[in-house]
């Protein structure tokens, strides 16, 4: 029941039309293609209107692929406890959950990040459909 209420609340929010962030999510990212990747942080761009960060993901064959992610702007991250140069640092082992970009390979929208110490922080907005 609790879960149902939560979903209903989220659906209500979408109906109210409070869009995800600065742009229309759906033009760039595909809310139907979720991803979850673990790797080591390669770089962090603490910029507006979105931060970007990259992680190096090692495949089963040992090959390393660099994935780049987009997230909230700094002002929204700071409100949730993020600190520049502290929360995400090059070399940190993290797991990113989010969605694939529609066309650009190895680009994703980050929804949440699980840090090496086990904390999970929101990193970006929920997926949009373009209908908001």
């Amino acid at each position, binding site marked *: 029941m609790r879960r149902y*209420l*939560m979903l209903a*609340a*989220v659906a*209500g*929010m979408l*109906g*109210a*039309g*409070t*869009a*995800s*962030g*600065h*742009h*229309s*999510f*759906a*033009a*760039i990212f595909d809310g139907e293609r979720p991803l979850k990747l673990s790797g080591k942080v390669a770089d962090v*761009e603490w*910029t*507006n*209107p*979105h931060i*970007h960060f990259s992680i190096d993901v090692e495949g089963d064959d040992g090959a390393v692929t660099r994935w780049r992610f*987009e997230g*909230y*702007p700094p*002002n*929204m991250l*700071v*409100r*949730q406890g993020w600190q520049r140069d502290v929360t995400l640092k090059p070399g940190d082992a993290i797991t990113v959950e989010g969605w694939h970009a*529609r*066309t*650009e390979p190895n680009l994703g929208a980050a929804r949440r990040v699980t840090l090496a110490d086990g904390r999970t922080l*929101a990193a970006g*907005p*929920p997926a*949009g459909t*373009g*209908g*908001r």
Partner: protein
Amino acid sequence: MTRWQTARRPLAALSFAAVLASPQVLRAQAIAANDEVPRTADGKPDLSGVWIATGAVLLFEGEEAYAAARAADEAAGRALPPNEPPPYKPEAEARRQEHLARQGIDDPMARCLLTGVPRIQFRPLPFEIVQLPDRTIILYEIHHAFRIIPTDGRPHPPDMEPTYLGESIGRWEGDTFVVDVRGFNDKTWLQGVGTVHSEALRVTERYTRDSFDTIVYEATMEDPVVFTKPWTLREIFRLRPDERIREYECIESNEDLVRFEELLQSGDEAFRAR
């Protein structure tokens, strides 16, 4: 916050209001029942403070906080009816559907243009209201935008040219702050993808601080060029006394501009709804 005053209203007004169930009366009743609504020296509810749309609570504070906020509204009798889709004439609805099919790639906001009224009130970034005797000022984190809303009885300026945020004039109707906004350009979306409008747009906003922590917000949009009837949207703003307006720079790393250009050049299939 210490300058805020409190005021008690006669209980008689409360019981009378209970008989009449119009939204305005219910809001007045809520104010009467809550002696924590701060007031300015002239007796008006003081809207001053940092506020944020309840929809943003989901982004900032998570699903549980959002559900709790909506449940609190339900319990307090301020739950909002579902918002209706825009009552567009066929031509405007066709434009909206085209924007939806294009997945919002034409969003003016994504190009860092000023977000218009009322969309700017729904953004997931806080805004600060500064209520002064002769004007009320709204400072927005998004775009670092501001609106100066005269309340000294002056009319709209005679030299209005179309703008993104229009020209606002405020007045009080009882305990509700009413803002009449005109003089818009047609370059913004009202609220949601493809919610186009014309320069004939006129927005009437109603801000009612019905408790210490909440403002009930209602925006009625009139535009005879695109609508068959007025369109009304509602939201609850929540006080964030420990928050401040932070910096928001839109264009620094706005990669959307490059991505949009690439997508548009690569053909419709790249971004159209499947």
